[in-house]
């Protein structure tokens, strides 16, 4: 599970990885979001509060429960709309939640099978018009993944 391989697969899935030390997270995030309208998911506790309603936020910050690094797929709560409504999304992931494959994510779903979940693999896209890939369709055009390194 080397860092470089994880990054490669994430970039292929069109997710931008940013590695950050836990103690620097709040500061970095506040700096990143300066001057922007953002909404923070109720599933996160990162000491940053939304400064805007979800419908008009530019950035949605959501909880990345786990990552399957083989496919670059992020596991999130299905009703965590911070990962859907704002046109840019930022997932917050703990490094220890990096798993190998989709199978591992499905095991996680199995063990908590009363909650809604979603696999997120990159930005929203469509190829319905003459098979030309267009990003985004109805969801976010950018997915950034903050990976909290200890």
């Amino acid at each position, binding site marked *: 599970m080397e860092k470089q391989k994880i990054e490669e697969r994430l970039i292929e899935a069109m997710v931008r990885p940013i590695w950050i030390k836990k103690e620097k997270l709040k500061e970095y995030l506040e700096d990143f979001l300066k001057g922007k309208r953002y909404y923070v998911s109720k599933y996160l506790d990162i000491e940053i509060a939304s400064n805007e309603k979800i*419908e008009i936020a530019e950035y949605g910050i959501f909880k990345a429960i786990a990552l399957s690094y083989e496919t670059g797929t992020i596991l999130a709560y299905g009703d965590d709309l911070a990962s859907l409504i704002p046109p840019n999304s930022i997932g917050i992931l703990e490094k220890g939640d990096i798993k190998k494959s989709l199978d591992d994510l*499905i095991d996680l779903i199995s063990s908590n099978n009363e909650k809604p979940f*979603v696999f997120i693999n990159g930005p929203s896209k469509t190829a*319905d018009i003459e098979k030309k890939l267009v990003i985004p369709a109805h969801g976010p055009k950018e997915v950034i993944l903050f990976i909290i390194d200890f």
Partner: protein
Amino acid sequence: MNLKEKIVEAIRDEKLKSNLWRAVNHSLESRKKVIERNYKNWEELRTKAKEIRKFSCENLEKLWEEAREKIERRGGKIFFAKSKEDALKIAEEVLKEYRYSPIIKSKSMVSEEIELRSYLEKKGFEIYETDLGELIVQLEGKLPSHITAPAIHLSKEEISEIVKSKLGLEVSNKEEEITLCIRNFLREKFLNAKASITGANFIVSENGSLVLFENEGNIRYCLNVSEKVLVITGYEKIIPKIEELKIFTKLLPVSATGQYQNSYTSFYPIDKKFNLIVLIDFRKKILNSNLKEVLYCIKCGCCLNSCPVFSIIGGHSYFSVYPGPIGIMLSIFSNPKYSKKILNFCSLCLACTENCPVKIEIHKIILKGRSFFANKALNFFGLISKKSIFDFSFNLYNLLPFFLKEIFMKNWTYNREILDFKKKDFFDLWKSKK
């Protein structure tokens, strides 16, 4: 326009041909690359998938009973509709309080099978398809021409015209701008919708949950923003365990769109927000027939892309909600009045069977269908089954004057040379070499 006229029109439509060809080739090439790179065990996955689907279809009653218990415990409602008419009435009842507010809808093959949207629209409901391709064909007023690429028969110029004339919105004919225009149009519907309609890729019996695959994000909206969600799916769409999704989350995106992974896969325990209609219709009837493998289908559309006939004539030539190889028998089952001529839309090349992620022997299903519907009355005294009769007819044809040959074989000779039948056919040569 009848079947034949439609096919001739499709074959002569250069733009359709090039669009379709590009689309199916792109899907097949990507699929091949993803399998080569990531799935050395692809055949094993297919075998497991078929086992799961076979087991599921052999235990549907028990699986649905288990699912029902879990769903009802959470306050969700489930209805088993024996017929299309039942399903339509239940849907209207479920959505009745939303008759005058906009309803958002995501893709569902079964909803198209029963013509749900047009039924509800006639009753005064306002329904918006939210899958980009489905919205475009809704505005166009036609059937989707492909399971996963519904608007593939349209050029971007035609799509732009449709958006301009039906939505009254100014838009160029660039793909990104058309998509942005529709994104903005639907966003307003998404943020204000009170009710949605969705389909289901799978229902998981173990915990009574719904699984849906997409790229656009419209399905996530449909699942989350409304106070009431109507899910409509077929009786065969259930699998026993969450664990088994390990197989399908790998097979489905690769087979459907040639992607390693699709953008969003939602896993939703069906609770009090949901009303699930399960359509039985013809499905129970074929469970014990030799055509039951048709029910294993996961509606990926891979057989469509693999089929040389489909990739020339396009989905509209089938005049059905279910086009392509698997669609041949599905169409006939779901609508018994359907023309049996579509059984001829197949050259038995077996490409569909080779590529089907669930290892359905689609060519065998078509052959069995042909055998079942063959006009047995024509075969008086078993004459047509005799090779000697064919040989005799071919030799007779060879003796005809040129102008009569041209008339007999006019569908062949429209763009090909007239040929005579050889004295010895393949079977004769094979026999003589032995």
